[in-house]
């Protein structure tokens, strides 16, 4: 999963950078130059990059939780294997991203503590329930699809360790997405019951998918640090439009209907009506669409969503239950030879 634009830092809060060094840095980055860990960087750059990596790592770890629930309930052995591999990949991505964030100056302990206590955030979509197998299919197709779009642009960013991690992550993300597509096509080529389950899951996940890219752009988006310093290379709205242009026709081609939905506090859909704005503008090539419900988005992300507490409780539980493993690694030794 990838970072949203919601990681903001007020650069006035950070140590004021040496104006000469800052000018050289900004020129270097604007010209497409890259930044490695031992290079000089403004404090605000370090802070913002750290928050991005941390948010991204949190999202990978929490994202694996709803999927983990379905491993034992997968409808076939192939799906079980693929879902297990996806979860494994995501936890691995989390580990790599925590390493990047650690190297930028925050301890692993502090990051896990802040995640569990709700200080730092993760992608909002993981605060919603996954009541059916079709939800897992839709997450893999839509959310991983959105992540690939976003991460593709992040891989052109300026910070070396992060962009190298993006390249590695994107390879695995391609498998998640392709498998998601396979699952959705299976459902939409299946029985009426399968198609109905798929449509209902799509109704739950279309909104969170287009909200995935973060809130609407501010007018000065490109002058803000994240884009000025090339940590993000595309705006939220640009990515959102790209996503709709790709996925709206694909969804409709499978027979899915794109609805504007209202949700209750439990995350379930209470009403669904076909999106009246969903039309192709022949001139621009862009599909019109109804924006996500931003009020609901902010309500959920602030901790009042259907699954926020449940996700964090499970993370805390796993962490506490894993104490004995950390002790064993610390105190024990393995029987594998090492040549030190």
């Amino acid at each position, binding site marked *: 999963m990838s970072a949203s634009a919601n990681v903001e830092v007020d650069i006035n809060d950070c140590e004021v950078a040496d104006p000469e060094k800052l000018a050289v840095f900004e020129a270097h980055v604007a010209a497409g130059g*890259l930044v490695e860990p031992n290079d000089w960087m403004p404090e605000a750059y370090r802070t913002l990059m750290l928050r991005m990596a941390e948010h991204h790592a949190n999202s990978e770890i929490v994202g694996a939780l709803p999927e983990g629930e379905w491993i034992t309930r997968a409808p076939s052995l192939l799906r079980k294997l*693929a879902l297990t591999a*996806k979860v494994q990949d995501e936890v691995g991505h989390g*580990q790599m991203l925590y*390493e990047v964030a650690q190297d930028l100056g925050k301890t692993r302990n502090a990051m896990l503590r802040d995640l569990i206590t709700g200080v730092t955030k993760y992608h909002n979509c993981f605060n919603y329930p996954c009541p059916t197998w079709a939800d897992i299919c839709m997450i893999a197709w839509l959310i991983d699809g959105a992540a690939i779009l976003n991460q593709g642009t992040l891989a052109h960013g300026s910070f070396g360790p992060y962009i190298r991690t993006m390249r590695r992550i994107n390879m695995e993300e391609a498998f998640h997405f392709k*498998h998601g597509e396979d699952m959705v096509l299976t459902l939409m080529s299946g029985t009426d019951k399968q198609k109905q389950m798929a449509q209902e899951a799509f109704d739950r996940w279309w909104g969170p998918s287009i909200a995935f890219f973060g809130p609407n752009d501010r007018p000065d988006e490109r002058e803000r640090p994240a884009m000025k310093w090339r940590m993000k290379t595309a705006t939220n709205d640009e990515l959102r439009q790209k996503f709709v242009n790709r996925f709206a026709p694909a969804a409709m*081609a499978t027979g899915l209907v794109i609805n504007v939905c209202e949700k209750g506090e439990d995350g379930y859909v209470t009403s669904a009506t076909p999106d009246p704005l969903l039309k192709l503008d022949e001139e621009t090539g862009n599909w019109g669409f109804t924006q996500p419900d931003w009020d609901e988005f902010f309500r959920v992300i602030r901790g009042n969503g259907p699954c926020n507490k449940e996700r964090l409780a499970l993370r*805390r539980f796993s962490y506490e239950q894993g104490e004995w493993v950390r002790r064993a690694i610390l105190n024990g030794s*393995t029987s594998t030879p090492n040549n030190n």
Partner: protein
Amino acid sequence: MTTGDLTTSEVENFPIWEVFTQKKENDVHVHAGSLSSPDASFAQLFAREHYGQDQVCISLWVGPRELFTSDEGENEIYEVFVQWSAGLKHEHVGEVEAGNGKEAKDICKEHFVGEKTFFSIWAIQNSKLTKVDGATDMIWRATTDQTYRLASGYSRKVRQKWDALRASNAVDKYQEEDLKETY
């Protein structure tokens, strides 16, 4: 340990290790990433699990991060790695015999870099690298069919499903129009 105090603090101080993998014979070892571990034996275990699993590799090297940039050392063989420009990964370029880390990097510059531009050089004593050889010691998952976890394992199936869906939509549309004509 209370829930407010969330960790064994010693875990915080695990040193960092750099991992290099060699994909196939005749490839060079390339930097794959880093990880935290208390010692070399866990480092190579974690490296296998994380960097050796999904991308087939036939050899894996792991070494403590601080040693790659150290100027210290003993008189012995050093493995040397070059990062040619920012954004790229360090690649193994060869071995040099040197008295310490600094000398190893200087010799590397002379022999392997020459006039070319480079961004950074790492050097580590061969004796401090943990090497895992896939030929004698299986690196996990290199031997079984992994297509269930690769995008390539689904490309053809997905294409076939799209074709079938479109064909059945076409048939439905055809039947619909056929009915319209008849009635």
